[in-house]
């Protein structure tokens, strides 16, 4: 299908883009790589008055220079570019593993990290990683900048804490360089939207002892969710997973009913924890 008619604005600077967002608010659709918004426009699920093309803004930086600070990615960092950088720099192994599952070779070439996060599909890989890693989102408007924790940013399906006049400017990924991470998802075909996705991080203290565990689940509810466990949860991770399952309220839809979604969450949750423990050099 073809989209409804829309005005098209192409700001050259972030200031120009923010002025447009301040002016149009909810009537504006910010456009990054276009792999989510493009189909929504073409299917007429989105009917904005104006499309604000962010494509020429300078938000392409990856800052991973200091190991004691979070990795920062500009909103317009392309997924394939991040994939190459993470593999070369050996950082953020969880995100590296998740990126392999995002869409296809062709869509990652153009799809951006900020676009995926701003779109907030409940099963999307990058929002799940951001929540699991306790990352955050930089939002910017003409009034200034604010940093929102990922756990507060994703409110519901395609719904975030972004105000209508704000843009997602960048993402912060706390990365302690832990080897103990794992990502897995279940989709009907490779590259399809995941039905359920799971991510795990095993945290260790400076002395090498396990300090805790984080289990993130996407696609189960209408936003990604993270469960945080102590060192005790690591030793009894099956109980930890069961306790997490009891809290979940799985989505029920024609693709996948709630009991099956929960069964997938349990299976994938256990699988990523076991693999994260193995990679951390611990034998579950």
């Amino acid at each position, binding site marked *: 299908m073809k989209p409804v008619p829309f005005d098209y604005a192409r700001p*050259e600077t972030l200031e120009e883009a923010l002025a447009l967002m301040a002016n149009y608010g909810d009537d504006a659709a910010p456009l990054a790589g276009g792999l989510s918004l493009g189909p929504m426009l073409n299917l007429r699920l989105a009917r904005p008055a104006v499309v604000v093309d962010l494509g020429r803004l300078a938000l392409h930086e990856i800052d991973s220079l200091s190991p004691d600070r979070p990795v920062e990615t500009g909103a317009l960092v392309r997924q394939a570019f991040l994939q190459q950088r993470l593999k070369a720099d050996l950082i953020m192994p969880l995100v590296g593993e998740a990126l392999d599952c995002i869409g296809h070779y062709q869509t990652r070439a153009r799809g951006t990290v900020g676009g995926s996060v701003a779109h907030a599909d409940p099963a999307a890989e990058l929002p799940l990683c951001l929540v699991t890693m306790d990352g955050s989102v930089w939002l910017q408007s003409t009034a200034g900048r604010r940093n929102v924790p990922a756990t507060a940013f994703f409110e519901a399906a395609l719904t975030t804490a972004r105000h209508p006049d704000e843009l997602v400017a960048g993402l912060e990924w706390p990365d302690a360089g832990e080897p103990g991470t794992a990502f897995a998802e279940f989709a009907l075909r490779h590259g399809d939207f995941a039905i359920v996705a799971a991510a795990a991080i095993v945290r260790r203290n400076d002395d090498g002892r396990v300090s805790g565990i984080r289990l993130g689940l996407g696609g189960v509810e209408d936003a990604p969710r993270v469960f945080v466990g102590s060192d005790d949860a690591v030793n009894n991770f099956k109980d930890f997973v069961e306790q997490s399952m009891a809290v979940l309220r799985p989505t029920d839809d024609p693709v996948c009913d709630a009991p099956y979604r929960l069964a997938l969450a349990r299976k994938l949750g256990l699988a990523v924890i076991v693999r994260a423990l193995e990679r951390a050099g611990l034998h579950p």
Partner: protein
Amino acid sequence: MTILAREQRHSITVKVNGLRYTGMATPRTLLADFLRHELGFKGVHVGCEHAVCGACTILLDGLLARACAIYAVQADDTSVETVEGLGKPEALAPLQAAFQEHHALQCGFCTPGILMSAKAFLDDVATVGVAPTEQQVREMLSGHLCRCTGYDGIVKAILACAEQAIGKSRHESG
């Protein structure tokens, strides 16, 4: 800053396969439709119109793009490569010749998009200098729907070209 009104047709200049073209497009005109109907590049096939089937895949400023999920106005002042830039019927590009040799197409609807993806993939292979596995080729092809071939010939053709690409990159770096 550029703001283009919805009902107006705007002048768009795009370099396609090395030559500059100018045509007209409203903001909602898909780049795929602009390339086909305005500039005449009929090798850009339009299938699903929501970035899934891969038939319209092109290179935009060197990066793979679904031409149905981009609007022509976005492509103003950019550089596009389509299947017409690969080879001619009387002088096929090596990739196209490999597709012919390995029976990698039947109806041909998906082929232009797959060829553009394969071109980008083989460029990556040459840069990295490591032969892709069959699994990696199949994963790359998961971004394209082909309902005729079962993909087998396509995989063989790309693997054959990958060996050549690595040989060539070794030769150049040696």
